[in-house]
């Protein structure tokens, strides 16, 4: 192992220049006649910038992973009370069905509240024009003959609700759409 002790500030500058001259070929290639140290310094600065960028990128990658895990924890945690209540409902499985259903309904409302709090309100409006930004067609059905029946191309029924507004959508509502009257 080769080490060299450098004596002090004044001699240091000289030592640094000596080092620059000792540097291997790559810089010498780029340098024109007589501007060796200026180019070498620029190259050094450039490399340091690239290295800083690379280190920053690595750090960012680690942070992103951490943040992602933390967010996942938070969201999962928000649903635990819902699960707890479902367990409770099952403990009363032998009871009067009407009472159980009422309890299940309350749990459903609780789950909806969790999703709304997380930013995903429920989407289940029928009797509106079909909009691919909000809906996904599952089947075409007859609109029906009633006065206020949905027109062709309008949503008849929401088979499965969607969650989230179009700009922050978790999933679209699955709907049936009125087919043309003659088809």
């Amino acid at each position, binding site marked *: *192992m080769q080490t*060299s002790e*450098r004596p002090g500030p004044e001699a240091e500058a000289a030592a640094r220049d000596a080092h620059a001259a000792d540097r291997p070929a790559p810089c010498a290639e780029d340098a024109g006649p007589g501007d060796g140290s200026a180019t070498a310094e620029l190259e050094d600065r450039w490399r340091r910038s690239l*290295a800083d960028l690379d280190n920053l990128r690595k750090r960012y990658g680690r942070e992103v992973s951490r943040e992602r895990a933390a967010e996942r924890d938070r969201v999962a945690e928000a649903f635990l009370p819902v699960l707890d209540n479902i367990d409770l409902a099952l403990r009363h499985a032998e009871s009067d069905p009407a009472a159980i259903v009422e309890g299940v309904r309350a749990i459903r409302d609780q789950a909806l509240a969790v999703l709304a709090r997380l930013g995903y309100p429920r989407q289940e409006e029928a009797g509106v024009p079909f909009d691919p930004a909000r809906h996904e067609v599952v089947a075409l059905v007859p609109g029906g003959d009633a006065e206020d029946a949905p027109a062709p191309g309008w949503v008849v029924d929401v088979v499965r609700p969607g969650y989230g507004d179009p700009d922050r959508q978790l999933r679209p509502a699955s709907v049936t759409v009125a087919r043309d009257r003659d088809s």
Partner: protein
Amino acid sequence: MARAVGIDLGTTNSVIAAYEGGESTVIPNAEGARTTPSVVAFTENGERLVGQLARRQAILNPKGTIYSVKRFIGRKFEEVEEEASQVTYDVVPDEHGNARIKIRDKLYAPEEISAMILRKLADDAGRNLGEKVTEAVITVPAYFNDAQRTATKDAGKIAGLEVLRIINEPTAAALAYGMDKKNHETVLVFDLGGGTFDVSILDVGDGVVEVRSTAGDTHLGGDDFDRRIVDYLAEDFQRENGIDLRKDAQALQRLFEASEKAKVELSSVTQTQVNLPFITADANGPKHLTATLMRSTFEQITADLVERTNGPVKQAMADAKVSADDIDEVILVGGSTRIPAVQNLVRRLTGGAEPNMTVNPDEVVAVGAGIQAGVLKGDVGDVLLLDVTPLSLGVETQGGVMTRVVDRNTTIPVRRSETFSTATDNQPAVDVVVLQGERERAADNRVLGRFQLTNIRPAPRGEPQIEVTYDVDANGILNVTARDKDTGAEQGITISETSNLDQSEVDRMVQEAERNRSTDQALRQEIDARNELDALAYQVQRRLEELGDSAPPHERARAEMLVADAHQAVSEQAPIDRVRELTGELQGVLGGLRAVSPGTSGADGDGAVGGGQGAGARTGADSGADSGADDADVIDAEFDRG
């Protein structure tokens, strides 16, 4: 400045990647998805939809929703009559016999449809990157003929893109793995996507990639595997309940979703639950579907699908005149290659070669196209190979531990500084011991060099500020300097062999550190606790000196006893519980002593909040001692016994 991108224009899905900062990364679309369905829809009211939105209204608009248009691009109608009969929209010949898509009495060339997909990809990516996308590398299957390639290029033009190059999909996959940089090798690319299967044999090396042969099956993909599970579950349910779920659109959709999820799960676990409560109802009430699907069952019901890849692989190898032993590398492309049965077959057919899967198989073609785009734009140079420090670099500090200054795997060149201080009062010099390694104890690491910084002005411990800078240059040469911020005096050392360790040596040291991690950490905690106790004892002592007679006698006695105990605990390396106990007690004592105002007689009570006389005043020495313990940047240096 506009950005060049690489686009994988797939039959079922498309992906776009950009070359940025030395890496090719996939850009999500406006909906946040990394892949975009290759679907375009023309609605009743003249609206055009591309991607996920187009897929959602497919049932509503079968004649106006164009999917898998890649099957028709650059083809004559007579070449694709069979395909045309399998899609829900109308494919017709124009007056020259070219295949055209007929939508509401208007004829569209397939490249016009593809152009809409490309346009969405480019626009969304441009918004994401914050700059317009105007140039692209677009990939095509290796078996595409001239007409198909030209038509794809035209699609790019229609989309407003300058097509830098059309490259083959297997070639792009090879680029993603950097195989063009290798020496001469034979690569097999196995591409099992959503709807098509392609296998290619490539020759790579010396910056060139050459396609030797291709084969495939134009109607084999992940969707077929999903369908098998749907049928299996539906048939089972029908046997038990007499209802065919596939006849109910809503149940069928749930079944498909659940089947796809099950398929994906079975790639990582050997069995999964399919849970579809209230899937349907009959006269007796609601019915539920709960089934356990074992991986072995899944493999049974999809065995023939996997078998179908056998033929093309053998064909491609025969055409390229290579045997399983000649194949040096295998690349897996397409989500379905995640299926274990598929991977096993690939291994068998290629003589046991371990396939490359580290790049996301859904994205690898786009990533490779992105790299090609970067190369063509001159963004990729071979000067930019940056090294890293293989092992951490640091300094020996109080207690014989290593304090890291540069973490391992930091890209170089890099400069990092830490501020240290003295461990005893009036310490005249500091010993800088330069260490390399991952262990906590200095003695367990490698000493690269050492030097001294002398003539430090007499001062209480913890007060002098010694800035130690580690500078690793692009060649791995380490310059360590120590500078006394007070006097400006500086010393240094140059170590030129920090990175001459070979990889196995580095790995060994890292593994050793990993093995000893918990003991090392425990040791570190002990030493840190001891150092903290030592510093605290010192502060108490200083405070006692300051207060002189003002210190209440019984408090002084207690303090002195605790300080003695502390010194003993430190020198005897007492267990951590004892150390922490003493630390707690000394903290209490210090608090009490701080409350006492210097200059008052010792008769005053204990802990009384100082009244009028300058209780808040902190002497310079006091804050100096505090900064030794509290200032996170200042670390106690090695106690110099010289």
